[in-house]
């Protein structure tokens, strides 16, 4: 059970950061995962008064505030036009609308959860996190960093000519994925991201080979991805099953990108 002694809606980022330095204090995003933990929190720090709930589009980037909800990114036209609907696809299977109206992008990314569709999706893009003290760090790096007491302020997605696709496999609708795949293509290089292995999302790159038939190429890329990542077993799926799914999902994502799946 979660117990909380005090609730503070921070008036400034500075205040939030200072409060967050105490180990018994805690930042809350949507609070969905936090609530399910057995934890005694002295002070819960709410960032919702800091204007971090906006999605801004600039000429060369998007900036998504940490308190933007999953529903907001699902509905954001510019972000979905840019990603050809992949962002929507990455969140629309997460429980239900009521859940996505509460869960925040910052909470999903900062938590670096293995099952995170959001982390998998954004690593596939050229994404960065803006940390209050740590500055701007690539999301791929951030995913590997140990958790500290900094504050995640926003996610920055650099725009570039790209194609991208998101796919996931779930044992049952609205459950966590048993494999999640974000695929992007910039120039002749694919970035293949696999999450829910069940370890958290990680990426590899793979060169496009125009000389091959697309179906044959997709098959090869799927096989290469399945060999490059490590997979494990948990209550939802075995390592062997995940490895098989990875091969198929990467192949399908590649074909979908070319409009042949």
């Amino acid at each position, binding site marked *: 059970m979660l117990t*909380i002694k005090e609730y503070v809606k921070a008036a400034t980022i500075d205040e939030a950061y200072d409060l967050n330095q105490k180990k018994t204090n805690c930042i809350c995003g949507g*609070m*969905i995962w936090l609530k399910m933990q057995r934890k005694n929190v002295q002070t819960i720090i709410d960032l919702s008064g800091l204007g971090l709930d906006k999605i801004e589009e600039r000429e060369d980037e998007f900036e998504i505030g940490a308190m933007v909800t999953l529903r907001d990114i699902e509905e954001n036209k510019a972000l979905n036009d840019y990603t050809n609907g992949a962002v929507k696809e990455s969140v629309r299977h997460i429980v239900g*609308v*009521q859940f996505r109206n509460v869960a925040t992008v910052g909470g999903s990314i900062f938590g670096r959860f293995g099952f995170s569709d959001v982390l998998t999706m954004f690593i596939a893009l050229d994404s960065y996190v803006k940390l209050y003290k740590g500055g701007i760090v690539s999301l791929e790096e951030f995913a590997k960093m140990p958790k500290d007491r900094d504050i995640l302020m926003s996610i920055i997605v650099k725009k570039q000519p790209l194609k991208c696709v998101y796919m996931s496999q779930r044992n049952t609708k609205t459950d966590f994925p048993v494999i999640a795949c974000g695929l992007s293509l910039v120039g002749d290089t694919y970035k293949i991201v696999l999450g829910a292995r069940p370890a958290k999302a990680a990426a590899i790159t793979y060169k496009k080979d125009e000389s091959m038939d697309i179906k044959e190429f997709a098959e090869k890329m799927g096989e290469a991805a399945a060999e490059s990542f490590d997979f494990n077993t948990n209550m939802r799926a075995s390592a062997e099953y995940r490895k098989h799914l990875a091969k198929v999902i990467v192949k399908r994502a590649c074909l979908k990108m070319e409009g042949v799946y």
Partner: protein
Amino acid sequence: MIITVNINGKNVTEDIEADLILLDFLRKHGCYSVKRGCETSNCGLCTVLMDEKPVLSCSMLAAKADGKNIMTLEGLQKEAEEFGTFVANQGAEQCGFCNPGFIMNVIAMFREYENPTDEEIKEYLAGNLCRCSGYEGQMRAIKKFMAERKGAK
């Protein structure tokens, strides 16, 4: 801490504990339609509207609702009754336990989409679990309701 929440059109001010969950706050103020089903953010039974958007009241601190407008089924009697008749006529409920959360989310859906497609309906309501009906009756009720509404226009 002291919070003021507008519940179904009435401002309620109260000194609350920091870890009071919105669901308990609402029940304390007479909104017994708001129920706890799973408490793991999965079933949708505790759905209420916060500033017009459906949210899970089991997964939110009451403190987060400070300054917000909350609507529960108690405040939406007319809309709920209108649609509820279709649910009953289609045999779309058996034990009825899921009903309050389901109706709240259907109301939210119709505020967002005038004419949702089957796919949009399924997706919008995916977070409202029902252990009895198999969802077919619910789908029929929604479609009959939409058809009737269209005819009335």
